């Protein structure tokens, strides 16, 4: 075990993947000699050469189109989109191409080797265009996998699993935690399961569900709630698509209450999908309405970011309201 931050854990995962398989390529805007604007690809070009880790021109649709071609050819591309806010020029290449490549060809061809990394989320004074959480747009697209890690240990194991997964995978990295989140990370290669949520803490009164950077917010809120005597079960969804219905349903059948939180706006957010499915599965066991604590239905603000943010106080209040309903 070594103590490191999330960026170091991501860098180590990329390094190991490139060392293990010379078909693994890392590329994107500024990822070459500079190592990416956040330094996730530091030293990779120096270690593996300019052919395997390189800058691309500034064109997101080109980066993902290029990555799709590489993946179809048998290479293992790990493409970086500098900010998740800038992934939209590549939307067509992701939802119409990567997601449908295997299905439309009857499995003659596939781009399962593709991994797309993108930093997402707010809390860094990034305003409209350096703060968004676009996972719900992609969650509406069968054929993709969407993975979000909460800490360095998870980041390394889930990124290695994403690179090895035989399906195109979007890996959204909570950039607010890049340096803020530190922890013990196992040495060597390991993979954590995709498609499985993780129960982080067992409880009996209410299930509190989130992913990525919201897990830190949930921890603080739950600490407050437990002081009030509410027993909380905490779950990290980890994979948004395809998501682990069973683990969530099993928990809610026990607690009878569910609070879901994400940074993205409320309307059309992934919490809505979870709420709909869980009420179907757990209708007669629910003690209170399923609560959603999310960003507001606005573009991401700048100066009033704190007001907008689904922070621990808002999550705590939702827990209280749910239990006292």
């Amino acid at each position, binding site marked *: 075990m070594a103590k490191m931050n999330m960026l170091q854990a991501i860098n180590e995962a990329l390094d190991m993947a490139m060392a293990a398989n010379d078909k693994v390529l890392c590329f994107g805007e500024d990822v070459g000699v500079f190592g990416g604007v956040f330094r996730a690809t530091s030293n990779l070009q120096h270690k593996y050469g300019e052919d395997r880790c390189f800058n691309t*021109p500034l*064109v997101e649709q*080109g980066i993902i189109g*290029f990555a799709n*071609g590489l993946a179809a*050819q048998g290479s293992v591309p790990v493409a970086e989109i500098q900010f998740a806010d800038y992934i939209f020029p590549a939307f067509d290449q992701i939802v119409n191409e990567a997601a449908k490549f295997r299905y*439309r060809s009857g499995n*003659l*061809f596939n781009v399962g080797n593709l991994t797309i990394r993108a930093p997402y989320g707010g809390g860094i004074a990034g305003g409209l265009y350096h703060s968004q959480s676009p996972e719900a747009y992609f969650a509406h697209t069968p054929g993709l996998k969407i993975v979000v890690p909460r800490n360095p240990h998870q980041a390394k194991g889930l990124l290695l699993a994403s690179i090895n997964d035989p399906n195109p995978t979007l890996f959204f990295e909570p950039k607010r935690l890049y340096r803020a989140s530190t922890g013990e990370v196992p040495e060597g290669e390991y993979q954590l399961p995709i498609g499985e949520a993780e129960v982080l803490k067992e409880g009996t009164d209410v299930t509190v569900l989130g992913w990525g950077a919201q897990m830190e917010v949930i921890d603080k809120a739950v600490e407050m709630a437990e002081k009030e005597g509410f027993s909380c079960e905490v779950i990290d969804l980890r994979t948004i698509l395809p998501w682990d219905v069973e683990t969530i349903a099993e928990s809610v059948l026990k607690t009878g209450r569910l609070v879901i939180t994400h940074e993205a706006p409320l309307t059309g957010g992934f919490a809505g999908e979870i709420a709909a499915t869980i009420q179907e599965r757990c209708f007669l066991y629910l003690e209170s309405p399923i609560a959603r604590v999310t960003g507001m239905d606005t573009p991401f603000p700048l100066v009033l970011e704190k007001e907008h943010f689904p922070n621990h106080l808002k999550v705590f209040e939702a827990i209280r309201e749910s239990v006292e309903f």
Partner: protein
Amino acid sequence: MTTTKSKTVYTPGFTDGTEFRIPTFKLLKQDGSLYKGGKAPDIDKEKALRIYHAMVTTRVLDERMLAAQRQGRLSFYMQCTGEEAAIIGSTAALDDADMIMAQYREQGSLAYRGFTIDEFMNQLFGNEKDYGKGRQMPVHYGSSKLNYMTISSPLATQIPQATGYAYGQKMAGDGHCTTVYFGEGAASEGDFHAGLNMAAVHRVPAIFFCRNNGYAISTPAVEQYAADGIAPRGVGYKMDTIRVDGNDILAVYQATEAARKLAVEENRPVLIEAMTYRLAAHSSSDDPSGYRSKDEEAVWREKDPILRMYNWLAAKKWWSASEEKKLQERLRREVLDTMKRAQKLPPPPLETLVTDVYDEVPPLLQAQFEKLKAHIRKYPDEYPKSAAHVQGGA
């Protein structure tokens, strides 16, 4: 750091490139003779006839299948008519192991590489033998064994993919290249610019083959771009670029052969602009009489690329009118017989609705599938294609 090596001037002068004109490369006249100074590429009789058979096969297939669509036997069809030399001439200059990423009108490439009439028909009718499992509209062919990437309807998405595929080929050092086809309309998409610029920057063995056929459905080329065609864009990316008469089988072949050499031996991507004409409608859903004249079409019928090649072959005594008649009759019969067989084959099994979305069916999707099967069991008469597949299940 800027990279321009331009000289400095002291008065403001603009340029729109008008002084820079890219010529059109031609070898073969319509009567089958060569232009003065032109030298035919090294194509032996066997190869010439392989090319010609693919052209005639494509033409016959297109005629019969459009008729079948008109009779209501087929939902949709797209013809390659008028562009056979551009497509087949370029494919013939490649190695059969080179990857082809086509737009949708390039069935001639498949015909050249040996896709059988059976294989065409299975896709067109979406039956149980269709490699694509009945999931895509007619003409969305694909063949991994013939190195022909499955067609995708969104335009130009295949262009940056070709750049990536070719980068992988360069890394693998396998001596192969990727050829990507697209129309002059698709070249307006952002993916065109993304793909060509990245190819030039990363030096990949790719050939970008533009079929400039004059129309994007109804929109004429003059409303598609203001410049002198597509070719000048290649120069803008510092890419080796050539414009060729797309109805001239020999010129297309020679240009592509030279392009492949640049791509594979020097990792220099190439843009080829083939000037041709879409003699047929855009698709079976289109009616060109609404946007162009019969006179205009007649001018291009005179330049028919198959007739031009026939005249060249006949002059060399490699082909005759009687052989032509026999070939056409045989192909027409084969297309009709195969169509009847393909039409009778059952549709793909119900499970193909949920397979291949992922490598394995995820639990949530499996649950949806079970629910669907229960529904079909309840209303079997309403789902004649799949009712038989769900009988007896739990």
